[in-house]
């Protein structure tokens, strides 16, 4: 049951700044963040609106590049990677779960889930088997031919989780994963996330404004005005 954090950092932020240019004014969203995330961590990044957590999520997810400082994903500086290599690395290493599910509306649940594998040019047979396996894992094996519009919010988020897991990524990045769900469904999703973390040994990074959700994590990082306000272990989870 107890998860062991034994390996080195899978993701590392070194004095990361992100500055947005708003006309003539420079607005810093992150100011000199340094952070090491080890393989197998379950981290919650919390903070009020405007604290910079979405910016941090984009940088951690390699969706954006820092204005200053370095982001290392699996010891590789993302600034040194070309767009196409970064996309490939991102696709293989990070699985995203978004607040608004972000499923492709014209595709069925199965097509949405198999898409990351198709992007990685995985053989059709292997991809199909894997996609069906993860859809079964999230309990949607009977809904594989439904389009997102034919699924409930919770079901859509479970499709998104399946899509996130299908490529067997080392990191799961969840941005307000329960933000659009009712509390019961939200709890179900979080329990599922925790179960995956425990059983599959993934690194989970969750961005949320809800401190109750952060209770699921083992490390909590609180941001305020683009800086890390506190970084502490969740004593309820870590003994």
């Amino acid at each position, binding site marked *: 049951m107890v998860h062991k954090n034994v390996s080195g950092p899978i993701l590392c932020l070194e004095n990361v700044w992100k500055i947005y240019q708003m006309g003539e004014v420079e607005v810093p969203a992150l100011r000199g963040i340094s952070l090491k995330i080890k393989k197998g961590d379950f981290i919650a990044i919390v903070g009020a609106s405007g604290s910079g957590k979405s910016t941090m999520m984009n940088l951690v997810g390699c969706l954006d590049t820092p204005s200053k400082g370095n982001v290392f994903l699996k010891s590789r500086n993302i600034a040194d990677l070309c767009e196409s290599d970064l996309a490939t690395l991102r696709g293989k290493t990070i699985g995203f779960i978004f607040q608004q599910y972000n499923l492709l509306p014209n595709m069925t649940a199965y097509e949405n889930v198999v898409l990351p594998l198709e*992007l990685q040019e995985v053989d059709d047979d292997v991809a199909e088997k894997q996609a069906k396996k993860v859809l079964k894992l999230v309990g949607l094996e009977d809904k594989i031919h439904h389009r997102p519009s034919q699924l409930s919010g919770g079901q859509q988020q479970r499709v998104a989780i399946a899509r996130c897991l299908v*490529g067997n990524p080392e990191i799961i990045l969840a941005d307000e994963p329960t933000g659009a769900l009712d509390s019961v469904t939200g709890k179900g999703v979080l329990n599922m996330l925790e179960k995956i973390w425990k059983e599959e040994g993934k690194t989970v990074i969750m961005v949320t404004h809800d401190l109750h959700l952060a209770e699921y994590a083992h490390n909590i990082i609180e941001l305020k005005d683009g800086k890390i306000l506190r970084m502490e272990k969740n004593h309820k989870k870590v003994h």
Partner: protein
Amino acid sequence: MKTSKCLKYALNMVMHSKLRSWLTILGIVIGVGSVIAIMSLGEGLQQSMDAQMSSLGGDILTITPGFSRGITFGHKSSGGTGSSGSTATEEEVVLDRIDVQALKSIPDIKLIDTNIRGNVRIYYLGKSGSVTLTGVDQKVWSEITTTEIRDGRMLGPADMNVIVIGGKLADSYFDKPLGINKMVNIEDKAFRIVGVLDDSSTSIIMPLQIAYTILDNKENGVYDSIVVKIKNEEDLDYVIEKVENKLMMTRHVTENNRDFSVSSSKQFQEMRSEMLGSMTLFLTAIAAVSLIVGAVGIANTMFTSVLEKTKEIGIMKAIGARNKDILIIFLLNAGLIGLVGGMIGVLLGVMLSGFMPMLMGSMPMTKGGAVTLVSMDAVVLALSVAVIIGVISGVVPAYNGSKLKPVDALRYE
């Protein structure tokens, strides 16, 4: 991502495209449809003309006295020295036995037919009318003429007071139809009809020597035209040149004061076919303009589509799509719009070309209704042009889409 998978996603995008995309497709449909229809009409006319050409005899040359140069008519310019103000007239420039002898010495010529022509009055059952009489060398005429016999027979070598008449003269010129073995009077002589031609003319064909006795103003041994059949159709141009040189020598004329013309039905047909070709090209060019408008439509739709799918591009990039994948998907999407438009356009074009003969039936140049022919070449050409136009129109929007930063694209609502 494999290209086959990109194609699958592009197809998915087209299938789920909104009305706007279908309107774009309609633009291509109209363009391709009209190009196909016009090309099929041109092709059809060309084919029927080719068929006519072969029936007209590509191996026949007609030599007539007189030569026209540009806007100069008659033979005024061919008078050479222009002495004593005399102007050459039709009567003075003639073809005669010397010319025939000269032609006989050309080995490429198979047969020579000499003709005279004139208007005569024909009487039948108390009615009369004026028709054209042609006197032919009955020994060779049957082998040279390209007109078929409908009833009876051609003129034979031993025939004297017999004639062959045109189809219209036989059927409807007089109140009662003329037929084989009917007797008619031409000027003051009686003739028996031995054959009816399979055409719609009112002409009369009779042996040359008899024709001289009927046509008062014709001098024996002087011809209105000489028709020759050459041995080998492929040598036509070469034989024309040979005939011209030979006749210029015997008639003591040069290129500058030539007083005879050599023409072939093939030349005439080629000219007509060339004119038809340019007309088809012109009409196709007009139709192609609508294709260009269609292309602008595709570009517009693709720009909007990239905007609309910005978020989807962001999602795909987040889960591992490379710039190249996005570029290929959108290019294929644009190409598919072109292809779908092209295919529906071909169907429309084929239908239009089916209706075309009805619409153009009354045109004089298309006897008995226009024929259209949708050639495989036209279909392949139109389809490839539609796809290429689609892809080209999609290049800039697809490139823009592929260059979107994932974080910006994901934020787009």
